[in-house]
């Protein structure tokens, strides 16, 4: 069941000198199994937006319906939070328990699941994120390496089996290899569970890699909500918001400016390579 959002607005500290409109009249629908990327620079309202989806910020104006749960009415928090999993920025800072196994089991335990079910979920979640169950389960989460900590924290959310998984800048502060690992991991999770993925980032390349649609937020407003190949047509507007186009699109743009006749709407790396090779062969012939 999709996520339906209508006219969502939110104001921080209303009726005071510090009042600030974080979200302005946002409406969008996310289909089941979609991989949505949310992009916008710092303070654009990305985080405020996703916090609404989990009920962590109370809905004050507008409408949100997630999997038939209407957030504008009284609803079951546990049900919502087991449906929507959210991985925060630097999730490794939320680790707390004595062992990795207990920490990952924290969410499922709060859901009131049976011991066997919790243990099963912890094991499968750890396997999915690439942590060896036997050797790591009894270690303290604080002993793990940075990358392992982040995986453990991710497993803690996955173990709740969310139908919608939100990730707030999951690659922040990682080295390029670690970033790619996490992005690949998200893809694996998606393929395995067919969950809806919503990923926040301010790096267009990360979002471009896997996302089926991109929502561009600027100053609390939803500016664009479309497929990546459509978004590149608004290159200048996107760049004016202080965001960058995906690298392949930028290269294609530069080549076009040099007078090379590339087709429009190139966003993916393979696509660009194919097009260039095709053109090159055409020139040779």
């Amino acid at each position, binding site marked *: 069941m999709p996520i339906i959002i209508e006219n969502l607005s939110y104001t921080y500290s209303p009726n005071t000198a510090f009042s600030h409109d974080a979200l302005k009249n946002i409406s969008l629908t996310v289909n089941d199994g979609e991989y949505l990327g949310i992009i916008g620079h710092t303070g654009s309202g990305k985080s405020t937006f996703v916090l609404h989806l989990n009920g962590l910020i109370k809905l004050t104006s507008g409408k949100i319906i997630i999997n038939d749960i209407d957030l504008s009415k009284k609803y079951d928090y546990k049900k919502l939070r087991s449906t929507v999993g*959210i991985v925060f920025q630097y999730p490794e*800072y939320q680790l*707390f328990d004595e062992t990795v196994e207990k920490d990952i089991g924290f969410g499922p335990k709060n859901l009131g699941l049976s011991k066997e079910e919790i243990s099963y979920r912890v094991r499968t979640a750890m396997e999915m994120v690439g942590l060896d169950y036997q050797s790591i389960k009894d270690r303290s989460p604080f002993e793990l390496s940075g990358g392992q900590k982040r995986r453990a924290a991710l497993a803690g*959310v996955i173990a709740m089996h969310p139908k919608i998984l939100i990730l707030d800048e999951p690659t922040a502060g990682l080295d390029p290899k670690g970033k790619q690992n996490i992005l690949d991991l998200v893809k694996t999770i998606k393929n395995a569970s067919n969950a809806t993925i919503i990923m926040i980032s301010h790096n267009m390349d990360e979002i471009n890699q896997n996302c089926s649609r991109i929502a561009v937020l600027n100053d609390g407003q939803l500016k664009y909500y479309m497929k990546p190949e459509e978004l590149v047509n608004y290159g200048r507007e996107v760049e004016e918001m202080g965001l960058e186009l995906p690298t392949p699109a930028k290269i294609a743009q530069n080549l076009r400016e040099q007078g090379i006749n590339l087709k429009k709407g190139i966003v993916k790396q393979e696509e660009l390579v194919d097009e260039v090779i095709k053109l090159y062969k055409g020139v040779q012939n």
Partner: protein
Amino acid sequence: MRDIALGQYYPANSVVHRMDPRSKIIIAVIYLVGIFFINTYTVYLATILLLLIVVLMSKVPLRLVLKSVKPMLFLILFTAIINLFFTAVQDKPFVIDLYFRKWTVSNIIFEARWGFLHFGITWTGVNNALKMALRLVLLVMGPSLLTLTTTPVTLTDGVELLMKPLNIIRFPVHELALIMSITLKFIPTIMEETDKIMMAQRARCADFDSGNLFKKAKAMLPVLIPLFVSSLRRAEELAYAMDSRCYRGSKGRTKMKILRLKARDFLGLLFFAAFLFLILAIKYNWLYTWFSISFLSRLV
């Protein structure tokens, strides 16, 4: 979580803001001591007026100063209610004393007996409750005005200078001041962090609001442990940052802003000294004693 006004500076351009932190701290101490010696409502009223005048002079919105009472509200109400209901019921006349006038009324307002239980509300109780509440509110509002008009850095500078004489007995004044300023500076950061971690654990269905006190305390563990871990990490980073900028304690360290007492500081100090003297004079009837002595001596 964000309602705690302590350590929240309100920037404005006023006499109170410009005053030397040392004189402000001393004035705050005089004020706090004074409050404990107030014994009549006339003086309470005068003190409230004085506080209001200082708030006006400081250009801080009164709402912000009142907000500082909010976290203490429960305690204040609790003590007031305890005083109201649990003052021993005695049927001796109660004297309403406004210093320049006195009334005597019958003490008991309401009385009930069930067997051994003797329960009642008396004027003494009302009096105790009201005075306690007034005293607590005034006690909280004064110092919060100090932190609202003084930046944590200036405040620490003031404390450090005031405690400097303790250096003679090798008391680590500078280090203590540093600890204080770091603590004050990190309060907002740690609050923000607490918020974030609580949200993260809430997203994992953690429940902080239900159950008894013991259960609630236990439910806070998933927040407190990461908070401690990150505070330690932050402390370590801060130590490295200070080290890399050659910080080596108080020895030979100079100040960027040198504090100097001005006329307004002396005026303020003088005024509050007079305020304390008046309160004490009223409490211990000095004026009365002195006047009668001089009057008598003239007669003789």
